[in-house]
């Protein structure tokens, strides 16, 4: 396993700094699910290690089991083989220490306002109560720039705003890891780009750990610090790469990396 400094991640060789403790470990995880007449193996013996403040990307074509893997880490399904552990504790069920941000816009509860949606997460999970919950909710709603809309109901918001609320809700819980399942895939290209930049800006503030699923190579390079490439049918680890420093985006190195990833995923 490679160990690396979270702040100087671009191309740093393993073992130069003291080995940090991993936050999330996935060891030899095989995931299967049943449809009406088939038993489908979504991933086969996948290993990965996430360290604090990682922006860890699960990248692969559709059918590589990346979303299923994220759901298993979320605790929604049990591996038939292998082990998933967060801070050394085996993951057995969903919990507020791993907040999910989904792709679907209906992930916000429609009967609650923006403010109530964020606050309810804190109250329901018993993380905070009363004024502390209100203040924390306000703080994160302000952070994603929706202070003006905090009394609006979700149906009055645009898709990008809904995803921002979902991110605010995830961050407000201050989980050990934020699990994002193609959160920007349903947005238009311009909004998606804006949201990616905003996510990076938020990360600069608090350096939270995020596990991000995407099928877009460009998004993976832009958002991630480290990229896990999965092959399809069933998902197996093809490579684990370091991404680029934001200053290198738009340079030749970006297109080099894109080509390299593309070749690895679709080359052979």
């Amino acid at each position, binding site marked *: 396993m490679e160990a690396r400094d979270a702040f100087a991640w671009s191309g740093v060789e393993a073992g130069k700094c003291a080995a940090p403790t991993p936050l999330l470990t996935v060891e030899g995880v095989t995931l299967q699910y049943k449809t009406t007449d088939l038993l489908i193996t979504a991933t086969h013996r996948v290993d990965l290690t996430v360290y604090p403040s990682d922006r860890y990307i699960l990248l692969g074509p559709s059918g590589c089991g990346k979303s299923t893997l994220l759901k298993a880490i979320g605790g929604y399904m049990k591996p038939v083989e292998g082990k998933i552990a967060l801070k050394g504790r085996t993951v057995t*069920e*969903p919990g507020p220490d791993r907040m*999910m941000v989904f792709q679907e816009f209906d992930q916000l*509860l429609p*009967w609650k306002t923006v403010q109530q949606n964020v606050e*309810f997460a804190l109250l*329901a*999970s018993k993380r905070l109560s009363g004024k502390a919950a209100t203040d924390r909710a306000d703080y994160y709603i302000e952070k994603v720039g929706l202070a003006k809309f905090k009394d609006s109901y979700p*149906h009055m918001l645009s898709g990008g705003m809904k995803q921002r609320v979902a991110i605010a809700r995830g961050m407000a819980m201050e989980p050990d890891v934020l699990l994002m399942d193609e959160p920007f895939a349903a947005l238009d290209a311009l909004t998606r780009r804006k949201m990616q930049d905003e996510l990076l800006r938020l990360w600069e503030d608090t350096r939270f750990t995020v596990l991000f699923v995407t099928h877009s190579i460009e998004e993976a390079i832009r958002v991630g610090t480290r990229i896990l490439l999965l092959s399809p049918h069933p998902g197996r680890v093809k490579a684990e790469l370091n991404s680029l420093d934001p200053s290198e985006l738009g340079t030749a190195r970006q297109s080099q990396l894109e080509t390299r990833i593309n070749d690895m995923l679709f080359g052979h």
Partner: protein
Amino acid sequence: MALSTLPRDGIIHRPEIIREVGEAGATVKAEASLSLPERLYQVAALRKALVLIGLAVIWQAYGLWLDNPLLFPSFTDTLQAFFEGIVSGIIPARAWISLQTLLIGYGIGIVLACLLTTLAIGSRIGTDLLETLTSMFNPLPAIALLPLALIWFGLGTGSVVFVIVHSVLWAIALNTHAGFRSVSTTQRMVGLNYGLRGLTLVRKVLIPAAFPSILTGLKVGWAFAWRTLIAAELVFGVSSGSGGLGWFIFENRNLLETANVFAGLFSVILIGLVVENLVFATIERRTVRRWGMQS
């Protein structure tokens, strides 16, 4: 004419047009208020009132023309009978008796529907039970059970409550169950993510998420209950000591007080309208409409 000669490349070339907006725009008003009749026509309540007045006029004209109060009392006769009934306290008392029976039946129906749906979302066999029972009993008219109810519960409120429960239960259970099943997987996962489990998850996520369907079930159940009640009272209210509105209608028919029969029907309609347009409409406006779950 420049356009009449077709250029060689097939595209009709013409000069660009750039206009100074404002030179002519000074005299154009962007907004103008509608005239008073036009504005009044926009008010739904006013249009409906117009329909009602129209119907009343036709009723009155036909009643006067027929001139047979035994067969068809005029609108004013009915109105008079209605207000006399209100003043003498007979209609309110009868309506109150009807409503009491109705609320008891409706309440029991809701509780049973909750139990059945809880069983249904809790287990596969519970789902099968609910589906089988609803497909068996939902098409069965409540009144058809009345002879049986009379044998089991005798003449009186018990039998009426029984048939009301029957008419309410399946409609509510069916709709609530459908509502729970249509709650999006994402919202369920969100609830689980917060650490909510079991009944807390049902109460805090599933019930609000399924609320549009639950409300539909309650509305349909209410309408069924109201119809069943009046019908049941008409059929066997004869022998019960203190009848409700149905019994009032039946009694007055026997006395050939047709205006009172109409007044009784009028009360039934009125109560139905009030519950539908005030109670349920208010709940709808404050919940599902506001949440954007129903347009």
